[in-house]
């Protein structure tokens, strides 16, 4: 009887998770969907606590209390701009949990494991461990604890692939001789090291793909846990997470015109720093007051936010400027590139935080046809996603990447910290175009000035 109740709670949880994710197909239904998912999680936990294997509750209560406190604190206090770091950190937590359950299973059953369970535990521990350390490195890069630039040394790919091969060899050997504990712990250690080495060579600008991919691995590690302890709700929820991460990483890859195999196997992401000497013409500086006049008398203005907006925390100031323009009758739109920022959907969340209604946020395909009829396109801390070389220059490292075609607007104003290059180290020909002007300085300050000047105009 109890078994039926437990299995029912798991089935209920699985259904509610799917309904919850389906709710996310529209902002209006999203919150209700998440409440369903929360309820599902509660049901699964209650069901689990009734299992007969559980005989003592001290460790459980202590763990739940501690974990919930940390989770609640992070949930309430982490600022929206730190969302990429938080996400990376939570992938590390999730993966570590899966990995530890796997280690414990192996520790308890070791040599008695059948091939199937040994295989599941192997996957769980491999994916879990490499995701844990990989996510921690991603966290450190996003938080600025490690330099964001790719860390590359000679023979890196060969070395990493050899390490992976040794790790997998350990795994295969364990499938046939599950009792070799030393090999199991060697595999565990190697997977931790491999996770670090996998993410170190990737630049911070490529983090959207990496985060999505680590999301996928963390989910698959959970699913493997489900295989190992034959628990269907774990398999279902883990697979949903794994699939979601996988789909997101494909979306991100398409948005950068990179193949998924390129990302999955090896040489990923470190765009060669080809310093092109082709700086034709010069960049034109512009005064804040002149920009304000342009904006104030425009019919349509499109803002193009990038990671620079996030670092400058300029989203609220930008919203103020948009308010000032809208009261003058200017149409304001926001153009969102899929890989703008450091994680999928990063810009949308920041703008939503600043009270920008989502009906003003436009995706690539919808906004590009609008640029020719746009009076001023304002680029706020974005670079590569507006680089016309991706479209015009087939030899460019980012050739073929879909871009926001701001250069087709009647005039372009680029808000930029300084004269340096963008993250990929590429020259951006946009800055040298006739219709482009540069407004240097901290994005937040520049925008606040502009707002004042627009109000006075």
């Amino acid at each position, binding site marked *: 009887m109890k078994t039926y109740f437990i299995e029912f709670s798991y089935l209920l949880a699985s259904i509610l998770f*799917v309904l919850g994710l389906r709710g996310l*197909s529209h*902002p209006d239904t999203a919150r209700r969907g998440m409440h369903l998912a929360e309820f599902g999680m509660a049901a699964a936990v209650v069901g689990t606590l009734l299992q007969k294997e*559980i005989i003592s509750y001290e460790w459980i209560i202590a763990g739940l209390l501690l974990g*919930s406190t940390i989770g609640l604190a992070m*949930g309430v206090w982490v600022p929206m701009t730190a969302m990429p770091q938080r996400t990376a950190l*939570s992938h590390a*937590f999730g993966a570590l949990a899966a990995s530890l359950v796997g280690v414990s299973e192996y520790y308890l059953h070791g040599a008695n494991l059948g091939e199937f*369970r040994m295989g599941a535990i192997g996957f769980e521990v491999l994916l879990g461990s490499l995701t844990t350390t990989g996510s921690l490195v991603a966290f450190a890069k996003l938080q600025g604890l490690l330099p964001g630039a790719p860390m590359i040394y000679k023979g890196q790919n060969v070395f990493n692939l050899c390490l992976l091969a040794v790790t997998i060899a350990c795994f295969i050997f364990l499938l046939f001789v599950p009792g070799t504990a030393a090999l199991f712990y060697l595999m565990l250690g190697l997977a931790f090291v491999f996770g670090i080495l996998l993410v170190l060579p990737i630049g911070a600008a490529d983090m959207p793909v990496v985060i999505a991919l680590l999301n996928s691995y963390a989910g698959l590690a959970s699913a493997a846990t489900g295989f190992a302890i034959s628990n269907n709700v774990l398999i279902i929820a883990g697979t949903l997470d794994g699939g979601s991460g996988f789909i997101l990483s494909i979306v991100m890859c398409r948005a950068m015109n990179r193949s998924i195999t390129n990302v999955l196997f090896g040489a990923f992401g470190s765009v060669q720093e080809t310093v092109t000497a082709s700086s034709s013409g010069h960049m034109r500086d512009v005064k804040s007051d002149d920009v304000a006049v342009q904006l104030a008398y425009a019919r349509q203005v499109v803002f193009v936010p990038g990671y620079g907006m996030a670092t400058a925390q300029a989203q609220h100031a930008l919203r103020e400027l948009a308010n000032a323009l809208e009261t003058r009758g200017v149409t304001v739109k926001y153009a969102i590139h899929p890989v703008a920022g450091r994680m999928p959907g990063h810009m949308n969340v920041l703008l*939503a935080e600043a009270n920008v209604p989502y009906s003003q946020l436009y995706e690539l395909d919808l906004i590009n046809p609008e640029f020719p009829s746009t009076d001023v396109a304002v680029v706020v801390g974005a670079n590569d996603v507006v680089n016309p070389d991706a479209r015009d220059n087939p030899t460019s490292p980012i050739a073929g990447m879909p871009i926001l075609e701001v250069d087709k607007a009647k005039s372009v104003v680029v808000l930029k910290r300084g004269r340096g290059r963008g993250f990929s180290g590429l020259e951006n020909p946009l800055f040298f175009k006739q219709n482009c002007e540069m407004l240097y300085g901290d994005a937040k300050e520049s925008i606040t000035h502009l707002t004042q000047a627009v109000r006075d105009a």
Partner: protein
Amino acid sequence: MSSETVIATFYVFILAAFLGYQVISRVPPLLHTPLMSATNAISGISLVGSLVTAGAHQTTVSAILGFVAVVCSSTNVVGGFVITDRMLKMFKRKTAPTPAPKTNEKQAR
């Protein structure tokens, strides 16, 4: 483990993958960040496995491993759901009629 169980398990896995693809490919890019934190919270379901490991108390080592796993996954569950809700609350079709004082308040924070 009998071969029927193994096959049934793979059925569940494949069907979940298929269902996941159908559901998740309908999530608009607008909500990709909340999607990520939501799936993160949901995959905190590994809490179920961690609870058993921590509570079965077969050996001290497994109990400690389980305890750490419970801490990690419950952090994800609670943190993930709280933050997802916080994000989703912000997405509005139209702005509130009096945005000015609100934005100031937020900036001050």
